[in-house]
């Protein structure tokens, strides 16, 4: 311990020692790390050297093998000898032959990375470079020492060497012929090949060669120099093809290696190593990734430093060394720190122990508590001054004496005498003891002490006890007196606390010393908040100073003060209290406190105030009511009170009214007939007339009822002057009479308007009919002219313009009629069974060619409902959908149209069906959407295309709404997507299944159209006809090829692969029948549709027989309508009508066989009616009959209506001929 207190154990000394040790440890560990890193770098150097040598050795073997097996041959040496011996062209030929002889071997050699094969003459002149055959004849002396040595010493040489094309590792062999040295040959690998080989050995490294600039640059061929660039590491070195510029250049250095190279530029260690030509390994970081870079000097065959091989490797070994060293350093520092901490702690503990000992002695001497230490025999071993004082003995008279002798124990307090022996026995047994005991001594007699004893243990054995005690005799006496006093105070306190009044006790200075709980309830101040404060905190500020002066005057006189006082609660509310304040006197009669007892009387005060206010309101109300009011005593029937209005109405003063019998003023009944008092009614509500004092009659509405005022029964009578109301009622009666007269006139006008509207509809119907009749002639003649094949192109275009205009006019008239019907509210519903599969199939057939012509994709889908039949107005649904699709086609330049039908909701058997028509067209500009569905409104796009009437959408919407649905533009993004949604309500036909016998509908995936237009091959030697057909079919969307004879048709058939052939019969050489027969034998000929076209005058029967024999699909006789031919071709292409041979087409219109069959199935009565309507020119009637005919199929109905709208009367009459049974 003494050493710790010495001069060498101070904290400074200790710190210095520890610091010295720490610095030594860090230095040692750092040195060890450097040594380790150096060893590792040295290993890297060796690894690089070994890898380089291994790579070279592998190439050496290959080079020697190549030389032995390929070069070292007599034929090679012979040719080379010729080349060496001859001159001029003979040498050139020998060189060429040598090139020819070894070229394939050289290619094989290249596959082994032996990239250079070079023959040199004995004088060191280049003879033939296989890697640069155009370079030859240049001297190598002074540039290629290896060549010089081999040709001088006639022995092979191996080693790295520069060159004129590129440097590399070379193996140069001497060549001799006929015992004569004739030159040498070298096989070389390039630096790239060496790098590749090393990379294969250790793929984790990147390699680069730094070539000594002064050793290579002067000797390079001029056109090779541009391939070399100066190294960023050292300007004395260059790099081969570093950029890389050639397409087959090696992979350039990675970005990391490039950055490292730049970072190491002008590194003095590297510069020193380069100067000394020694190897070196350094480290570098790139983007926090550690790298190790090794430099290996490469010496050429003359042992001159020629290059440096550089290896880049991402290697964390140096980092690991550093981390390892850091861990060791930190561990050492931590260990030293811990040792220092322990030494410092030990020193501080020793110092603290000495200090504690001194403190303990002082405490013992100054302690008020008596303290005695006993041995196991109860003999006092030690005592402090306080023990001596309490026990009444000097220290020397206590130490060595028995405690029983010096502490005369009487028993435990307060049960003195009951456990006489317990204290000393417990102490002597070494047990703990805590308690108060009574003792006695000779000087002071009995005294009470509070004593505590604890055993002293040493090595687990009890070696004595320590007893602490102090005298509590005085305190015990005081406590007894206090207990008695407290009991009395507690009773008084309970009384005050439980009082229902607020009690405050203040001292003479006015500070509150006590408040009871009621005070807190009333004022909101807690006891803690109030005590110490002045009662002035309760002041409301509404009482004047004189009030308080009088109160203090009374109290100062020693008298009790009582009164009502307006106070303020803690929350700011005011309250009234009745207070009794009296002085409190002490036992000497002197005033020591004031006590105030207060009772909250706020509620009572409020009630009094409210009562007064109510009385005031009642009086004000009665006085200011705009009605007359009087109060009558029920018992005496005298008027007790009358308000000013009543007084004014009576035209006298209150004094003249009050106190008089009510009958004199108000009651028109006879005395004794008061409706309330005499007739026992509860309320009297009646209109009366008052005659006031001036004699004026005033009509009033009077109300009388009973009330009770202060227990007495009264009548309260109110009456209102109704002179104004009576006057208004009179005026109202007069107005009613006038209104009835106006209503009658309006109804008359409405009847007239309805008549006018009917007249307008009649006018429109009549006018449209009148317009239609001449229009029929226009259309008819235009069609006839259109069929005239002799017309020229411009004339045909004019006729087609007339046709288009007539069509447009017809459409306009039809739409106007429809609109007029809609406006007249005469849209009727004709419910029929409808299935979407059939509907969509028909629609698809209608728009198929239109879409194909515009290269649009049409998709129709009705997933989930294709097999369901609905009861709905089928015609309207069809028309709306067709309108929408037609619009989409019109305004869509590319993309397609998709129609999707789906049931969106079902309610009480009614299905809400939604049909979305979306297209990729130009869309509807936002500004035009508002008027989109208005009649005669067209979008700007519609106006541009100059098609349509502007009525289609308004008619369609009217149809949709008439079917409980709507038609809306859901969205429109120009060029992307435009969606119209058509909704309608339809009922599902229970248990029905789709009855469909037509083309299979492809269902939910829609019906995509063929992307390719149908191809037509026209075979006709008549150029005029051929051109006409080409034009018409091309206009109809066909891809057309035309030939003028049968041979050309056969030649082009397989190349063009047409879908349909239009074949003239009368062709030069090979006629149409033979051509057809041969086409059928070609690939694809069996499926192509062939239509034969004949001139007039041909025997039909012959044609029929021939056609059947040659498998001709159909035939037409000239002249015929080109439109009919187009329709027929379209039918054949789309497969809509498979019946092959129809009767020959002539000038007359020939409806298709399908419609003739369907029309023949109509009842003859119906056909007669329809014919009558046609013959009478009643197209409207005709349409109504067609719509009404239940047995008429949809396609036939559409077809008949189409013909009717086109005024194809002859066609209709032919179709509906009474004897028009189908004849196959």
């Amino acid at each position, binding site marked *: 311990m003494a050493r710790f207190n010495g001069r060498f154990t101070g904290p400074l000394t200790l710190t210095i020692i520890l610091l010295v040790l720490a610095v030594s440890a860090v230095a040692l560990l750092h040195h060890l790390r450097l040594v380790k890193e150096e060893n590792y770098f040295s290993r890297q150097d060796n690894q690089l050297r070994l890898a380089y040598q291994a790579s070279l050795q592998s190439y050496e073997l290959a080079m020697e093998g190549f030389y032995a097996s390929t070069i070292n041959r007599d034929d090679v040496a012979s040719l080379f000898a010729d080349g060496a011996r001859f001159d001029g062209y003979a040498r050139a030929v020998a060189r060429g032959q040598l090139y020819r002889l070894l070229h394939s071997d050289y290619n094989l050699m290249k596959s082994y990375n032996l990239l250079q094969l070079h023959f040199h003459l004995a004088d060191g002149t280049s003879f033939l470079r296989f890697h640069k055959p*155009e370079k030859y004849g240049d001297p190598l002396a002074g540039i290629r020492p290896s060549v010089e040595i081999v040709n001088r010493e006639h022995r092979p040489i191996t080693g790295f060497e520069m060159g004129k094309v590129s440097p590399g590792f070379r193996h140069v062999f001497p060549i001799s012929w006929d015992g004569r040295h004739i030159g040498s040959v070298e096989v070389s690998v390039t630096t790239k090949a060496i790098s590749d080989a090393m990379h294969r050995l250790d793929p984790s490294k990147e390699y680069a060669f730094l070539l000594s600039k002064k050793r290579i640059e002067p000797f390079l061929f001029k056109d090779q120099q*541009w391939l070399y660039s100066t190294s960023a590491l050292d300007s004395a070195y260059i790099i081969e093809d570093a950029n890389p510029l050639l397409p087959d250049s090696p992979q350039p250095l990675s970005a990391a290696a490039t950055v490292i190279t730049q970072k190491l530029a002008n590194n003095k260690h590297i510069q020193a190593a380069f100067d000394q030509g020694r190897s070196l390994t350094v480290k570098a970081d790139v983007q926090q990734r550690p790298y190790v870079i090794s430099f290996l000097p490469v010496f050429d065959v003359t042992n001159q430093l020629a290059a440096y091989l550089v290896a880049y490797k991402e290697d964390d070994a140096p980092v690991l060394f550093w981390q390892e060293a850091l861990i060791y350093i930190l561990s050492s520092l931590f260990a030293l720190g811990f040792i220092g901490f322990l030494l410092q702690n030990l020193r501080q503990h020793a110092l603290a122990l000495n200090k504690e000992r001194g403190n303990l002695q002082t405490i013992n001497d100054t302690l008020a508590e008596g303290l005695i230490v006993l041995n196991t025999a109860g003999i006092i071993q030690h005592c402090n001054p306080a023990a001596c004082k309490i026990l009444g003995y000097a220290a020397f008279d206590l130490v060595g004496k028995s405690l029983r002798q010096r502490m005369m124990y009487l028993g435990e307090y307060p049960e003195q005498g009951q456990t006489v022996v317990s204290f000393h026995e417990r102490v002597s047994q070494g047990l703990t003891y805590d308690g108060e005991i009574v003792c006695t001594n000779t000087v002071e007699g009995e005294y009470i002490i509070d004593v505590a004893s604890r055993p002293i243990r040493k090595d687990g054995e009890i070696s004595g006890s320590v007893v602490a005690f102090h005298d509590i005799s005085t305190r015990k006496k005081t406590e007894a007196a206090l207990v008695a006093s407290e009991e009395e105070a507690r009773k008084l306190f309970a009384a005050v606390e439980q009082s229902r009044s607020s009690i405050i006790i203040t001292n003479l200075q006015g500070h509150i010393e006590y408040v009871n709980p009621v005070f807190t309830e009333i004022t909101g101040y807690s006891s803690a908040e109030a005590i110490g404060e002045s009662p002035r905190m309760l002041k409301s500020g509404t009482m004047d100073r004189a009030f308080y002066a009088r109160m203090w005057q009374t109290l100062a006189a020693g008298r009790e003060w009582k009164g009502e006082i307006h106070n303020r609660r803690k929350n700011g509310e005011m309250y009234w209290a009745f207070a009794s304040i009296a002085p409190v006197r002490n036992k000497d009669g002197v005033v020591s406190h004031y006590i105030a007892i207060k009772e909250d009387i706020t509620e009572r005060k409020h009630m009094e105030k409210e009562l007064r206010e109510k009385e005031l309101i009642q009086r004000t109300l009665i006085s200011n009511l705009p009605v007359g009011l009087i109060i009558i005593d029920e018992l005496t029937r005298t008027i007790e009170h009358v308000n000013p209005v009543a007084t004014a109405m009576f035209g006298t003063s209150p004094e003249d009214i009050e106190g008089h019998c009510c009958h004199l003023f108000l009651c028109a009944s006879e005395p004794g007939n008061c409706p309330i008092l005499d007739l026992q009614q509860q309320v009297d509500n009646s209109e009366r007339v008052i005659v006031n004092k001036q004699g004026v009659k005033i009509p009033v509405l009077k109300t009388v009822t009973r009330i009770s005022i202060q227990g007495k029964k009264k009548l309260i009578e109110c009456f209102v002057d109704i002179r104004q109301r009576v006057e208004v009622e009179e005026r109202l009666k007069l107005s009613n009479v006038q209104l009835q007269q106006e209503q009658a006139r309006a109804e008359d006008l409405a009847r007239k308007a309805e008549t006018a509207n009917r007249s307008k509809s009649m006018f429109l119907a009549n006018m449209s009919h009148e317009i239609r009749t001449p229009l029929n002639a226009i259309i008819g003649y235009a069609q006839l002219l259109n069929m005239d094949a002799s017309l020229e192109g411009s004339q045909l275009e004019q006729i087609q313009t007339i046709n288009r205009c007539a069509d447009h006019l017809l459409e306009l008239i039809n739409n106007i009629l429809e609109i007029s019907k809609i406006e007249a509210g005469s849209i009727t519903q004709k419910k029929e069974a409808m299935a979407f599969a059939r509907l969509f199939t028909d629609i698809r057939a209608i728009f198929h060619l239109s879409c194909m012509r515009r290269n649009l994709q049409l998709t129709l889908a009705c997933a989930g409902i294709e097999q369901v039949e609905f009861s709905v107005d089928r015609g309207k649904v069809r028309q709306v959908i067709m309108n929408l699709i037609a619009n989409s086609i019109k305004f869509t330049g590319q993309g397609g149209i998709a129609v999707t039908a789906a049931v969106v909701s079902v309610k009480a058997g009614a299905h809400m069906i939604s049909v979305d028509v979306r297209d990729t067209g130009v869309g509807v500009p936002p500004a035009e959407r508002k008027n989109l569905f208005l009649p005669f409104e067209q979008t700007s796009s519609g106006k541009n295309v100059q098609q349509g009437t502007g009525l289609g959408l308004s008619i369609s919407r009217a149809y949709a709404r008439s079917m409980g649905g709507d038609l809306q533009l859901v969205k429109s993004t120009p060029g992307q997507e435009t969606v119209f949604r058509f909704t309608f309500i339809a009922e599902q036909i229970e248990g029905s299944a789709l009855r469909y016998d037509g083309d299979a509908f492809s269902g939910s995936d829609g019906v995509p159209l063929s992307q390719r237009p149908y191809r037509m091959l026209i075979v006709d030697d008549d150029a005029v006809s051929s051109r006409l057909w080409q034009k018409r079919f091309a206009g109809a969307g066909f891809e057309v090829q035309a030939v003028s004879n049968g041979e050309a048709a056969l030649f082009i058939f397989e190349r063009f692969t047409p879908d349909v052939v239009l074949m003239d019969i009368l062709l030069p050489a090979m006629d149409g029948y033979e051509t057809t027969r041969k086409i059928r034998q070609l690939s694809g000929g069996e499926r192509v549709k062939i239509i034969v076209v004949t001139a007039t005058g041909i025997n039909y029967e012959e044609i029929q027989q021939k056609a059947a024999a040659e498998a001709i699909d159909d035939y037409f006789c000239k002249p015929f309508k080109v439109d009919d031919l187009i329709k027929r071709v379209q039918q054949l292409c789309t497969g809509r009508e498979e019946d092959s041979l129809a009767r020959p087409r002539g000038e007359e219109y020939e409806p298709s066989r399908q419609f003739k069959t369907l029309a023949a199935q109509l009842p003859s009565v119906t056909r007669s009616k329809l014919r009558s309507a046609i013959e009478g020119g009643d197209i409207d009637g005709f349409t109504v009959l067609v719509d009404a005919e239940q047995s008429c199929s949809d396609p036939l109905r559409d077809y008949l209506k189409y013909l009717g709208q086109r005024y194809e009367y002859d066609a209709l009459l032919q179709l509906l001929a009474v004897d028009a049974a189908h004849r196959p």
Partner: protein
Amino acid sequence: MKSYQKRAVYRARLYLQRGAKIMRLLFVVLLVASTLLGRVPSVFAATVRFAPLPMENKETVLSRFRPLTEFLAQRLQIDIEYVYADDYAELLENFRKSKVDIAYLGPLPYVELRAAYAEAEPLVFFKESSNAVTYTCALVTFPGNDFDVRHGRYQKIALTQPLSTCGYLSTNGLLRNSNNSLEDNNYRYVGTHDEVALSVIRGEFAAGGLKTAVARKYAHLGLFVLMETPPLPAFALIVNTRTMPPDLIAAIKEALLELDLTHSGQGQQIPWNDVIGNGIVEAHDSDYQVIRDLLGSARIQQKGNF
């Protein structure tokens, strides 16, 4: 001449005439289609796309053309990007599709290109090492290859590319001077002039047609020139007037014509070489009339016949 030879000659003429018609039609169609449908860049690209000769290996290409491109880049402060093509057909296609702004072309490729693409315009000729604005093509062979230029039939002949001037056009012309023709022999396109020379030396072909200057380069290997054509317009820089702004074209022309080649590679990192170092003269479309005359109605086969 035997009857079968006459028939062969007649058939060849017929095919050539038909081929020429089809080619003309094709060119017209391509011209119209490219005019109507082609997307004409409206703004000159910041980088000039240069197509070097596709007839040489790429290392040679780079070493030959770098002095030229580097000079233009430095003088005009422009970036030049190399657009490599494997053959003339690909190069011309790139040119027509506006993927190339400027190209180094021989006379036949230019004539073919101009016929289909009117925006191709010759800018300057590069003089040959003989200081002439012309060059010649040669028919070469190697001793022992047993090539009979007059009477030989079905002999293997190496050609560069269909659109190479020294390919089918000149080789067939040289053979025809000896009353022989390519169609009477077996010919194949091997790609580059160097490859023609080396393949003949190696004995893979009995003879070959290539640029005379290249053939001379391999004379030390025994390659010898059998026949040589009359002088043909030299190689030229052809600019794409559709993609290049006129002011840039004028600047390039001016820079090249004003170049003083007496100071070897002034300011250049790379010295002048055989492409640019022999001199530069202005070129005009009319200079190519000799090629058009030579081509006449001949039909150049696009593939070898064996």
